[in-house]
């Protein structure tokens, strides 16, 4: 178990900058996720950590050891590939034992440790099966066992659940989380699925176009996004653009096309001054239905469409040229074309510079 540090790591493929001056710090035993849309550089970042790509600049540390120039086979990292990369000519036992054989561990110990790890991932009794005789979930466990058996300094997971069906994916991510807590192994997980990332991680990094945009706990990222991309990538939201007209200690006032909005800027260093162009972000679950008038953050509109999700209903409300998305209780009676008035408290309204 180590602390993984990336300092100013850049990796280019031709003229494409896949990883752009990435600096991050993964703590001992932490479950850290890199989240971003496809092509954002998250997998490349993981491969740079594994040593499968050589960065053009920047350094990588495992604790205090600079591993930047280590070839992959000297990094002692255990990686689970997106396609599992199980060797088709070896059975489960041989696949899992491979890393130990390379390390010239004695036969008896290999036997013991393979048995142990297969129990851990619940694959006892499947030693003689070949990869093509296993289900997707079982293959995934073999890949995990194969990576874990060498007791790696860091566990690297490259979208390991993306090839599983939806139900299995939810089961496996719970198991993965439990396993990681049990082994207390530093884990770096790459995914494009924001729900998965939120559920599984201690902390996460949001990445786009090769850059890290924010590193924080899932809660903080959702509640206090640092920029517009993070805000719009994580969950649903309504975004209204405007200009700052007034700045007070508690909140800022924003003048929009049809209305005036009060909101807060989540971080001190995100400087917003009077006259600046900004975006106001509203999460659908923070809206309330409101009868009384003259509140600042109140919007009158017409129901454009709504859909029943289960526990809630998702409503699209037309307010002038803007369209708001918000949630109401599933028992609430909705009609298309009917008028509604919604309200959001200013402390739940995030104002970000554009």
């Amino acid at each position, binding site marked *: 178990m180590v602390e993984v540090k990336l300092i100013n790591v850049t990796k280019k493929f031709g003229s494409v900058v896949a990883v752009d001056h990435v600096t991050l710090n993964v703590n001992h035993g932490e479950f850290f996720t890199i989240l971003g849309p496809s092509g954002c550089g998250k997998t490349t970042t993981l491969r740079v950590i594994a040593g499968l790509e050589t960065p053009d600049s920047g350094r990588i540390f495992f604790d205090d050891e600079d591993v930047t*120039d280590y*070839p992959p086979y000297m*990094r002692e990292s*255990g990686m689970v590939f997106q396609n599992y*990369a199980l060797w088709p*000519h070896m059975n489960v036992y041989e696949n899992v034992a491979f890393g130990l054989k390379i390390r010239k561990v004695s036969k008896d110990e290999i036997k013991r440790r393979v048995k142990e790890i297969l129990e851990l991932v619940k694959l006892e009794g499947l030693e003689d099966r070949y990869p093509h005789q296993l289900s997707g979930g079982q293959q995934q466990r073999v890949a995990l066992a194969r990576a874990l058996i060498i007791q790696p300094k860091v566990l690297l997971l490259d979208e390991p659940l993306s090839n599983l069906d939806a139900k299995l994916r939810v089961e496996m991510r719970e198991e993965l989380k439990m396993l990681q807590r049990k082994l207390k192994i530093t884990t770096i997980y790459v995914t494009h699925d924001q729900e998965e990332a939120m559920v599984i991680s201690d902390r996460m990094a949001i990445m786009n176009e090769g850059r890290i945009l924010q590193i924080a706990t899932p809660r903080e990222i959702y509640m206090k996004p640092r920029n517009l991309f993070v805000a719009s990538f994580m969950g649903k939201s309504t975004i209204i653009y405007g200009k700052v007209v007034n700045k007070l200690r508690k909140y800022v006032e924003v003048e929009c096309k049809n209305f005036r909005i009060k909101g807060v800027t989540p971080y001190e260093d995100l400087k917003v001054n009077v006259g600046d162009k900004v975006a106001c972000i509203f999460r659908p679950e923070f809206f309330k239905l409101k009868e009384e008038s003259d509140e600042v953050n109140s919007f009158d509109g017409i129901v454009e469409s709504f859909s029943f999700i289960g526990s809630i209903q998702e409503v699209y409300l037309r307010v002038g040229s803007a369209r708001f998305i918000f949630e109401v209780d599933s028992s609430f009676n909705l009609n298309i074309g009917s008028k509604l008035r919604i309200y959001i408290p200013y402390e739940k309204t995030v104002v970000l510079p554009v």
Partner: protein
Amino acid sequence: MSIKFKLIRLLKRLLPHFDPFIIFQSAVSLFFFIFLLILPLSSIVLRAFLYKGSFSLYWFQSILTNKYFLSLSPKGGKLFEIYGDTLYVWGLDYGIILNSLIIALTVATLCSILGIVTAYIMAKYEFPGKTVLRIGLNIPMLATPFVNAYVLSKLFHPKRGIINVLLYDILHILPYRVDVNGFAGIILAQTLSYFPIVYLNVLSSIISIDPSLEEQAENLGAKGFTLFRKIILPLSLPGIMAGFTVTFIFSMEDLGAPIGFIGYSGNPLAKKVMSYYIFQSFSEALRGQISPETATLSIILLILSLSGFMLIKKYVSLRTYATISKGSRWSSKVKKPRRIGLLLILAFIIPLVIFASLPQVGVFILAFTDWVTSGIFPSKLTFEYVNQLLTPSVRTAMFNSLTYSILAVLIAVFIGSNASYVVSRVKSSIANILDILSTIPISIPGIVLAVGFFLFFTSYFRGTVLDPLVDPSILLILAYSIRRLPFAARSIFAGLQQVHISLEEAAMNLGANRLHTFIRIVLPLISINIFGGAILTFVYSMSEVSTSVTLGSLRGDRGPITFYISQVVYGSVVVGAVSVGAALCVLLILLQVIAISISNYLLKQRFSIFGM
């Protein structure tokens, strides 16, 4: 960390993609190509451009102004001439350079026409007997060096040839006896054995066309010939180009037809081509000399075939080959022709298959009957010639061929695996160079390589085991290995394409270095491709002609079977000796059929470019 590791770290700073194993692989492969391809060919260049100790175009000038080599007006031969009851089809003599070029262009054109039509029919129509014909179309490609041309010259003998006796004397279909001889004989022999190459190339292109592309065109109103011209022809252009160029190159470097086509009363016209001229000058080589004219002519031949290769380079590189040789992922649309169409198809393809298989059929007849001495028709079965395969001189030749071929396979597979691995896994200029070097031997005339080997190894390795005047065995092994390397490299490369890179990364991630990964992960996964490629390499080494009859001639007891066959067809005065050659060819045919079946089965390759 150790000193070794610090060194790696330092090198890695200098070369970001430093990997000892990849560097080793590149270096070994490059050394092989430099030593066996570039240096020998450079020795020819050196010889051709040196006159009285300095660089000069003297030899080129002297050759290109000599009417024997190049003549703009014909100085002999006859195109179509009738004397008495015989129509002579020989071809005109424009000097050996133009002769070779005209023959090669004619052969390539004829092969392309036959090949494209056949491929279109086989790809697009369903008709009774198709499977038999499909197999039949492979028969002409079975190598029966020298003897096939000998059979054709025997069939077309104006007085005693079966074709003339049958069609003129007995059936009276022909108004004249036909004497196909000289260049026409070469063109006939080569066209018959090479057109299936174009056929297979074009077939593989046509069936790789996504049927929805055709359906879309039909949906928009295109049909029949328009559909063929606007959609199928352009999309199968890679196959056509590759087929045309390869037959062009094969025709120019061919020695089998010029040597084997004896013709009526030993007409020497068939010998007036570049490859034969170079071959003959090897008899001078026995005295340790290769004339500057020969070297210069080799360079001209090399330039002609290499320019052909450059034309199709992008279609035949390992990287492209692997993607187009797999055949179709979908089943191409097949139509049932109407009655007239069916008749036309059968009337074209059945005679073609029969006619093109005549040389191979003739080889069997020569081997198992007394045809060689009986006159027009064979009169009785005999095992006399097959039994002669057990004589010491034939056994020596067979032993030589087997030894050379097996060792050549080992070398070709070793180099082929290393070079292919670099080409498939590394993106660098070295990989691109290795890609070209692994394919280019296809376009280097064997006879030119033989000249290069002779010049290079007699000059710089005089008196050593590598000196062909001492013992040509090792050079023959090396020559086979480089000439047949493309077959091994392609097959292995195709296998590597199937191995997902993450399988190797997973091994390296778990602590295996490149060498370990290569041995424990990559090799087991591509073992079938290695084996399939090895079989092909073996078979085409056994039937290799050009270097066998040249370098192999330098010491009688070290000659392989193809050298032996060339001797009995061309030089031997012993009655019936040709039939012993035919018996050897039967053996070669069996070997080829078995090996190619195994390889096709293993590689699950239904069709392959180059028809091999």
